């Protein structure tokens, strides 16, 4: 491949280019896929990792924050863990490799590496725009994942857990999922490190909701303290489709979760909820680009952040309402509990509205724990530390409760209180 560079590469950029060179022969894919990978890597090399001068990355200067890239190490066997919600069907991806024997009743499952091998995955390996570093990195390096098809009118009686576990090294996974008309399902996309060694993870889920599909999708990120996690979910919402998308960040050192959502069918509904639990010296970015592209659709977005230590968080929420998307109803809010003087949170809501008959609003708050609430709990004998923990927990638990599926709510509340117990 062409090693001539137009600008000086950073150590991390050089490592990515070298890793690609070292793996090119063994990455799965037919000619079309290999050609696509090569083009994406070339684009990445030319553009470099994005800096703060790129608007979409202004608060997450990837070039500066991603100083190195761990080697794509071979790792000894990793054992699956118990699912988040008891009774879920678990589809394991261990160190980036899917399980060829995985099966779920009523769902068509293909291994993504097979789609790479036969070339059917090539068209999907894209960068969504000129600044889509995650699309480029994942498209260049992706090895495996699951492609799921939930047929029309299918209602899954148990959640499916996409259980992505890894140790140190590099992991690049992909989950194309198609939900047929009027299907109903809950998917838990769970990313978790089983060791402390540094890892680079990229993962993209491409999901399509056909007309009337009713889906709950949970992204639970629990990476280790040195990990970089680059996630992206690409969503298309059809007519009267309903998506509850929950993103929970409870780990990682450098995290970017991009939510690229297009509402393309009338009557569609999106409920986005995000919980960012931020501690140590981590940097976590949730970036939403939501297009309301047709009339009569609605969405609500609530992001709750808790910041400890020297952690930094970012929420960018862009809502675009297309010229003919009349009667759009969109409400976005981002609330932060800042429990430290050394950390921070940046919220950047943006509304681009080209239609004239819409209801769109946004709001952002940053606050400490309400002292009157603290007094109330302490006046009942709850010691200060415990009272604070209860109030922090309440701040985020409030939106988890909106999920309404009791077992799921309990499990996520468990994740949150365990995190808070460790960090608060």
């Amino acid at each position, binding site marked *: 491949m062409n090693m001539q560079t137009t600008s000086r590469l950073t150590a991390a950029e050089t490592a990515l280019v070298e890793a690609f060179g070292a793996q090119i022969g063994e990455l799965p894919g037919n000619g079309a896929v290999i050609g696509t990978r090569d083009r994406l890597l070339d684009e990445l090399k030319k553009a470099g990792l994005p800096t703060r001068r790129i608007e979409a990355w202004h608060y997450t200067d990837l070039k500066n924050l991603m100083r190195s890239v761990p080697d794509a190490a071979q790792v000894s066997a990793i054992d699956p863990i118990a699912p988040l919600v008891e009774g879920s069907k678990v589809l394991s991806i261990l160190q980036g490799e899917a399980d060829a024997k995985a099966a779920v009743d009523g769902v068509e499952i293909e291994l993504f590496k097979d789609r790479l091998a036969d070339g059917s995955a090539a068209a999907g390996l894209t960068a969504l725009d000129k600044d889509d570093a995650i699309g480029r990195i994942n498209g260049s390096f992706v090895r495996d994942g699951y492609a799921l098809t939930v047929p029309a009118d299918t209602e899954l009686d148990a959640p499916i857990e996409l259980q992505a576990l890894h140790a140190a090294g590099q992991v690049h996974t992909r989950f194309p999922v198609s939900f047929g008309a009027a299907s109903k399902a809950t998917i838990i996309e769970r990313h978790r490190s089983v060791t402390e060694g540094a890892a680079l993870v990229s993962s993209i889920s491409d999901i399509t909701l056909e007309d009337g599909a009713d889906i709950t999708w949970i992204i639970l990120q629990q990476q280790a303290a040195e990990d970089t996690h680059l996630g992206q979910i690409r969503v298309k919402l059809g007519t009267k489709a309903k998506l509850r998308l929950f993103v929970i960040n409870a780990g990682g050192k450098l995290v970017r979760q991009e939510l690229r959502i297009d509402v393309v069918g009338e009557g569609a509904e999106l409920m986005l909820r995000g919980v960012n639990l931020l501690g140590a010296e981590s940097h976590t970015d949730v970036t939403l680009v939501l297009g309301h592209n047709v009339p009569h659709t609605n969405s609500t977005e609530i992001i709750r952040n808790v910041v400890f230590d020297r952690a930094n968080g970012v929420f960018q929420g862009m809502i675009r309402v297309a010229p003919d998307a009349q009667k759009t109803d969109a409400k976005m809010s981002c609330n932060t509990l800042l429990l430290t003087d050394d950390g921070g949170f940046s919220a950047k809501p943006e509304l681009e509205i080209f239609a004239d008959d819409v209801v769109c609003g946004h709001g952002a708050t940053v606050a400490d724990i309400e002292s009157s609430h603290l007094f109330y709990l302490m*006046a009942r004998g709850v010691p200060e530390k415990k009272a604070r923990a209860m109030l922090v927990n309440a701040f985020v638990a409030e939106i988890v409760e909106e999920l309404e599926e009791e077992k799921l709510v309990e499990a996520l509340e468990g994740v949150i209180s365990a995190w808070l117990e460790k960090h608060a």
Partner: protein
Amino acid sequence: MLEIKNLHARIAEDGTEIIRGLNLTVKAGEIAAIMGPNGSGKSTLSYILSGRQDYEVTEGDILYNGESILELDPAERASKGIFLAFQYPLEIPGVATMQFLKVAMNEQRKARGEAELTTPDFMRRVKDAAEKLKIDQAMLRRPLNVGFSGGEKKRAEILQMALLEPKLCILDETDSGLDIDALKIVADGVNALKSPDRATIVITHYQRLLDYIVPDTVHVLYKGQIIRSGDKALALELEENGYADIIGEAA
């Protein structure tokens, strides 16, 4: 049980003095009413007794069972048996009422070196106390005070008081916002807790509540001092003549 000696206190933020040389003694078994016009320092006194940090004591002392409690935080005071029923109980979204009750009861027990309650024991106690106060179970399943009516909030306060079994109960304007039926339920709840080793301070603006919770002593608070003390006849006198006469005498 409670001895307040020459207490001076101010708002921490701006230094405004609210309590100006207050003396008060409340014995075990006693129900003491504190009455006074708006702005006399009644609610401030209740906050200072329970340890709210928005106020600073600049002089004097508060002795509880012979020991100063000024250095104790609100949780420590609570576990020693001091309970404030709030005038305006706060809504705390995201904190489940049952979980809150359980944590509060068990933290107090832990602080006193007692064993934690088992879940069935806890459930039984809550059920019994709730029935007496006509609090239905649906209310207990909601987040703490969220969406409760004014009367429900006051009953929830008395429920907490019944469960926590404090030694010194401070009721801050518990009658405000209650209709007569709700007032009776709340008063019954308070009276049920009357015992020789428990003292109650009833802070109120009006005499009405004292028809139902009959005080042993009545104290008039004005400009941060007790300007007159007496028995329940004093409350009736206030009801007839208002505060003006007494304030005039004291001035």
